[in-house]
């Protein structure tokens, strides 16, 4: 049984082996064969700061969940940003440069975020990351971006991590109000206006819930009768809602993503649980929650948006309902001219808002665009940036925290009714004050492009 063909394929294998060895030897001979001592191999020097920038273009990227559970709503953010960049490009770009905006799908999975960030950095060679979305996702790549000196601007998440430690993460800038400040403002409002409430907390079990709880507890402690946490991805929130109901909470402060607002509303309806709801800005978009509600209930709830009637929330940029706001009018114009299919939504406005801030920074840095120059400019001028945000940014050499505050409002029909003026604060025990910067009253320039 051991007889074999005379033309054994193995002889081909041996020839191949010989060939490969020969090739390697040749390649080795071509190699440097030792290292010169003049140390010219440092690729991270000054020249590399211009990655992604040419005479007539600047390439930037972002990671967003375009598919998967987190896609509803969030996948619209980059479409809004893209529409605004297209608008700027159509008007000649910034300092002669067109903005090339590359969006990658990470499906809200940190492993994928790491992969697509490598793709953005190594293949697309982006100048900066703009608006990368999500706390668990972005935290997977924030160290890498900083280690490689890539500006990491306007992270679409309210975690403290993006701005509280400038030394550790010098290239990263936050964008929306952090969850702790939001928790503080909501906590103070409840303590002052509803002192008798039995408060329940409904929290996403990550930085979002943790930071928010820290903020809320500065003002409320004995009033809190129950704290329930859910894990993003697990769609059964029955036990948590039942827990809140069991503890007799009559005011639920919920810090969660829109899908979980819808799920929580749905379960409460099933259980006949009718507390007063206070949904943080991240999870309270009435249109999205409405459409999710009718989707989750398989059509049983027709007019989903009205399920949020009377729910309290917070706002830090004007939304689609405020049609007389000059910023919203600009966004509408941009979307009509350059938008993809679909209507202008609050998520698209969110995308346009951070796109606007980025364009403003490009405009401000000037023609010599470098990564470090961009970061320095933001640290020096960030607090005074115009824009749709109701309160100013907190950017400085010591802090990269985003928007400083928000106003509380109640959802009434298709719009919201303000409960408070714009309140600003900061992390830690910083005081909550009424905003005096007039940020909420500014208007975009005529051209719609920052000057």
């Amino acid at each position, binding site marked *: 049984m051991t007889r074999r*063909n005379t033309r054994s394929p193995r002889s081909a294998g041996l020839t191949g082996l010989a060939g490969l060895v020969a090739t390697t030897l040749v390649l080795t001979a071509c190699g440097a064969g030792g290292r010169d001592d003049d140390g010219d191999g440092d690729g991270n020097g000054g020249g590399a700061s211009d990655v992604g920038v040419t005479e007539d273009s600047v390439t930037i990227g972002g990671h967003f969940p375009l598919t998967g559970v987190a896609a509803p709503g969030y996948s619209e953010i980059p479409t809004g940003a893209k529409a605004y960049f297209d608008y700027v490009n159509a008007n000649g770009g910034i300092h002669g440069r067109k903005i090339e905006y590359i969006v990658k799908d990470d499906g809200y999975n940190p492993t994928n975020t790491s992969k697509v960030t490598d793709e953005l950095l190594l293949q697309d060679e982006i100048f900066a990351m703009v608006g990368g979305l999500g706390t668990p996702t972005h935290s997977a790549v924030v160290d890498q971006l900083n280690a490689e000196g890539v500006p990491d601007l306007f992270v679409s998440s309210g975690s403290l991590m993006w701005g509280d430690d400038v030394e550790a993460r010098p290239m990263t800038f936050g964008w929306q109000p952090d969850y702790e400040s939001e928790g503080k403002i909501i906590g103070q409002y409840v303590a002052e206006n509803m002192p008798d409430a039995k408060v329940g907390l409904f929290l996403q079990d990550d930085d979002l819930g943790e930071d928010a709880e820290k903020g809320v507890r500065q003002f409320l402690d004995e009033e809190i009768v129950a704290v329930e946490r859910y894990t993003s991805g697990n769609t059964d929130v029955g036990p948590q809602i039942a827990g809140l109901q069991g503890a007799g909470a009559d005011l639920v402060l919920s810090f969660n993503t829109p899908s979980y607002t819808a799920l929580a509303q749905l379960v409460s309806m099933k259980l006949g649980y009718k507390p007063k709801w206070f949904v943080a800005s991240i999870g309270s978009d009435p249109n999205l929650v409405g459409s999710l509600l009718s989707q989750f209930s398989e059509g049983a709830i027709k007019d989903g948006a009205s399920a949020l009637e009377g729910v309290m929330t917070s706002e830090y940029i004007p939304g689609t309902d405020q049609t007389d706001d000059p910023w919203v009018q600009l966004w509408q114009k941009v979307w009509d001219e350059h938008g993809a299919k679909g209507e202008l939504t609050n998520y698209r406005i969110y995308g346009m808002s951070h796109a606007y801030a980025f364009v403003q920074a490009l405009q401000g840095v000037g023609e010599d665009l470098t990564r470090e120059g961009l970061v320095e400019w933001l640290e020096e001028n960030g607090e005074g940036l115009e824009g749709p945000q109701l309160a100013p940014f907190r950017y400085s050499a010591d802090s990269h925290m985003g928007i400083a505050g928000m106003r509380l409002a109640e959802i009434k029909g298709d719009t919201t009714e303000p409960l408070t003026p714009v309140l600003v604060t900061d992390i830690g025990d910083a005081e909550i004050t009424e905003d005096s910067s007039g940020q909420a009253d500014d208007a975009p320039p005529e051209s719609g492009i920052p000057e």
Partner: protein
Amino acid sequence: MAAAAARTARLRTALSEVTLLRHLVGAALGLLLVVLVLSAVDDFRRVQLAEMAYLGIAAGGLTVLTGLNGQLSLGHGALMAFGAYTTALLLPDRDGVPLVVVLLAAVAVTVVVGALVGVAAARLHGPYLAGATLALAVAVPGIALYFKETLGGEQGLRIIVPEAPTWADDATFFVTGQDLTPRGWIAFVAWLTLVVTYFLLANLSRSRVGRRWRAVRDDEVAAQLAGIDLARSRVSAFMVSAAAAGAAGAVLAIAVRLAAPSSFTLNLSLTLLAAVVLGGLGSLTGALTGAALLTFLPQVVTDLGREAGLDDIAAAELAPLVYGVVMVLVILLAPAGLFGTAHRAVVTRRTRRALAARAADGRASTGAPTDGSAGPTDSDPATRDSTTTTREGAQP
């Protein structure tokens, strides 16, 4: 001249008859190819190749379990999580444990878990086994959420990969004239792990242990009559497979610099199974083929979609669609998998030619062609199976 020919012939005989030698040569060649490829491509491809490596390692382990021992596991993604979290706990900062130790520790921890699961799995069959391992895939990510303090909860544990040692840096510079980039180093570690794993798996499957696994897979009663302990054989297969999954998990963790529960969902387990099925069940080369396809296909498809003028969302949605279509097509048109089908075709043709040659020599009565004619790929565990199948298929 005659002496040289005799030496070549001796070497050839040695290569074909000493499995270990043949596999060693194969591994060395593989490693050489890896170094050549890694030094020729850019950093982004290195990242992708590292991804292909960890999928390949895990799929290799799974293909040994499913293809050789006949046990189906839907929980290999969860086993990878054990490897990844072990790595993350050992590498909290830059002065962490040496990578070799980390990899071995990851393998050891996963083997222990694999043994526990294997003991349960050995009592189960078909859908029940699938169900039990499915439970593993669903439950394990929950462990990280429950022990939030140590395991980092939803956000997972970040990993700081130690820098490449100076010797590796110098060796790279010596051979290629380039500096060793961190990603190049990770890709090299990933592929070195793959080569070592495949070398060990290939040896094991050609050994007595491998023959027992196959015997158990093919006919339990016959295997028992031959004195094989069914449970022991099954548990050992599960442990070996788990070891590969542990190594894969460790490589994944250092490649993506993160161990988070969302990386180890059921989706990953199914991806591994898909890699095995796409490439060809029971074959290491097939597993690697499948891993390559699953690594490169989504990115290529998304880029093509974008070039064809689709918007970002539509392009992103194209990848899962094409993945599904490819899966259906492979199962319809090449049920033995991409590599399996190609390999089978080669073996069939070679068999026919050999038969014809022998018939012409008037010596056809000596029997069917032997395993020895299977050629350079017979380090592959599938070869024996394919040959058997071919032989069966050729019989009227």
